[in-house]
């Protein structure tokens, strides 16, 4: 029997049977404090978060062009978790509808040039064991702090280079925007197999950006591309290295280490 008049009473009786534990005032208080400190952090770290988020969205899509939207979002979530843990403001997850627009496709250099409003300078000085280079275009996801919305931003061009050992790395080409601020020196990624409770384990990747005319090319060190190789590419391209900001990096000279964030 399912009359509407009976349902409220039955739901009330059912809910009455749920015994709530004592109110955890300390936990709630700390969540309130965390929310306030997040608001304070927002203004000064937003620019870095935006830069990182757009880079990450492109990276994720380029790395997994044929994968599902859910997987792309899961990859992005690892970077988002890292940004939050380091005290920065990470945008909320991009909606699936938007991420589906970010899926990349292969293009020729001529076609890529026709889609962007900057002069593409292809990379030179690549490591000698690079066996194939693809040009991939993908739209960037842009988060507006004012409107709290994600929108599809201008397309960016990515050179996906495959090495003889099967590893691939990416070089991102984008329009230089003097108002965008300095790129981050490091990108942090929450380790994939991090436990749901306990400390969060972060992996630090050094990030490089250089300018050729109105193009900014950027690359992030990884297992497939060492920092010294990125420097060689920049030098061969006669690129002007952009100053990098190190807002969230832990105070340690060591590179490529894991950081435990309590």
């Amino acid at each position, binding site marked *: *029997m399912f009359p*509407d008049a009976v349902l409220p009473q039955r739901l*009330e009786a059912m809910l009455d*049977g749920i015994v709530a*534990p004592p109110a955890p005032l300390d936990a*709630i208080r700390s969540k309130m404090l965390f929310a306030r400190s997040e608001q304070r952090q927002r203004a000064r770290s937003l620019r870095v978060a935006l830069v990182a988020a757009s880079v990450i969205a492109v990276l994720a899509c380029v790395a997994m062009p044929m994968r599902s939207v859910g997987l792309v979002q899961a990859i992005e979530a690892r970077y988002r978790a890292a940004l939050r843990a380091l005290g920065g403001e990470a945008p909320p997850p991009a909606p699936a509808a938007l991420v589906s627009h970010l899926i990349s496709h292969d293009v020729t250099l001529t076609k890529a040039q026709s889609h962007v409003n900057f002069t593409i300078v292809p990379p030179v000085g690549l490591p000698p064991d690079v066996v194939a280079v693809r040009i991939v275009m993908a739209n960037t996801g842009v988060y507006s702090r004012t409107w709290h919305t994600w929108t599809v931003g201008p397309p960016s061009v990515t050179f996906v280079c495959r090495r003889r050992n099967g590893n691939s790395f990416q070089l991102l080409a984008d329009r230089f925007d003097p108002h965008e601020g300095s790129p981050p020196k490091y990108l942090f990624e929450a380790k994939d197999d991090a436990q749901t409770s306990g400390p969060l384990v972060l992996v630090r990747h050094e990030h490089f950006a250089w300018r050729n005319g109105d193009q900014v090319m950027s690359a992030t060190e990884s297992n497939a591309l060492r920092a010294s190789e990125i420097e060689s590419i920049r030098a061969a391209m006669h690129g002007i290295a952009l100053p990098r900001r190190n807002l969230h990096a832990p105070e340690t000279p060591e590179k490529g280490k894991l950081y435990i964030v309590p």
Partner: protein
Amino acid sequence: MALKIEPPLVEAARRGGPPLEELIRAVWPEAYRIAFAILRDRGLAEDAAQDACAAIAGSVRTLRHENFFATWSYRIITNAAISLVRRRQANQNADTAICYREPFDYSGSLDLQIALDRLSPVQRALILLHYYAGLASGDLAAATGLASSTVRFHLMQARRALRKALEVRNPTAPRTKKESASHVS
């Protein structure tokens, strides 16, 4: 509506006075019950209820009038619970029913509980908010982040599924005219 908080307490909390903790204590049981009914997991329910209480206490000053407190709180609680579900189901649709581990320990509502278990978390939230908290479709839309038309569709689906599940468990029960004629406000 089950969330009954004394208006002077809400008013004092809006002004940022010491009763803020008192307000949290008053809201907590209901926040936990609603979150548990939606999430069906004690740990998740505590987490969602904590998030909701922190949000309520942190933004009660922005509430225009204490009369709106209950509706406003239900929206925050539901939103916290559904956000938690969505975060945990990043790779699948949040509206997909998931497996739950912890049944209610209340035999009097067993058939209703089993019927609710067949709904998705969003549909459970809509049923609770509409029939228990008395929220209209506009508030349901705000609480769940769905469009009003989607809310009405989900509610209709949820009612249909509930009816079917309850009829299977009690096949001799008669159906009423009101049952088939009623709709969302």
